[in-house]
């Protein structure tokens, strides 16, 4: 099922930031700016070396929550459009995890929306990460 008109996705494949930005801006000439957040896998977390991260999601519910998040952000910040892509499966250090691309008439709303969206995503979207290290693997605890 497609959520948010294809503007929110959970996928195994990497995303193309340029292509996503082009999709975001193709439909409007009112857009004055696009703010991007790209989350990446680090090779170090909470004092441990990280060799890979497994991302597990709740299919259907994760996409539905992302679509709700998109609608809420558009309303809250008066955005023209918003794309959110989150990857699932096994990712290695340096790999992309998440893309948030917010298009608005002015930069302030675009920056604010990006920041708000990643915070809300981390708080509400049913996705979990299991970090693998040389000495074993652990499910991450939620950040307060």
């Amino acid at each position, binding site marked *: 099922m497609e959520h948010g008109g294809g503007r929110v996705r959970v996928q195994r494949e990497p995303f193309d930031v340029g292509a996503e930005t082009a999709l975001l801006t193709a439909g409007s000439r009112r857009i004055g700016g696009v703010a991007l957040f790209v989350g990446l896998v680090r090779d170090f977390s909470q004092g441990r070396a990280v060799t890979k991260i497994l991302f597990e999601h709740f299919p259907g519910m994760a996409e539905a929550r992302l679509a709700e998040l998109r609608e809420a952000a558009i309303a809250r910040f008066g955005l023209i459009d918003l794309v959110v892509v989150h990857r699932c499966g096994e990712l290695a250090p340096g790999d992309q995890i998440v893309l948030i691309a917010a298009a608005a008439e002015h930069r302030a709303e675009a920056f604010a929306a990006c920041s708000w969206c990643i915070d809300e995503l981390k708080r509400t979207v049913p996705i*979990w990460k299991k970090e693998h290290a040389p000495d074993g693997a652990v499910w991450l605890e939620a950040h307060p």
Partner: protein
Amino acid sequence: MKLTVRYFAVLRERAGVESEVVAWDGPAPDVEGLRAHLAARAPALGELLRGGSLLVAVNREYAAPGTPLRDGDEVAFFPPVTGG
């Protein structure tokens, strides 16, 4: 009535299954009733099901302990989310 129970992340690993069908006799439970039943049944999983930070979704919407359950509902138990 029958309920489909799903587990994610550390709960899925501890349960040893991704999902199971639970047949329920008697009055329909709420989320808390189902959680207590599952926790009493399997000690290893029960420890996690009794945790204060447990999250529950009924038919893919976040639910509260008092959310009533109906025949055919899908009830998912999972830990606090850590995406992004």
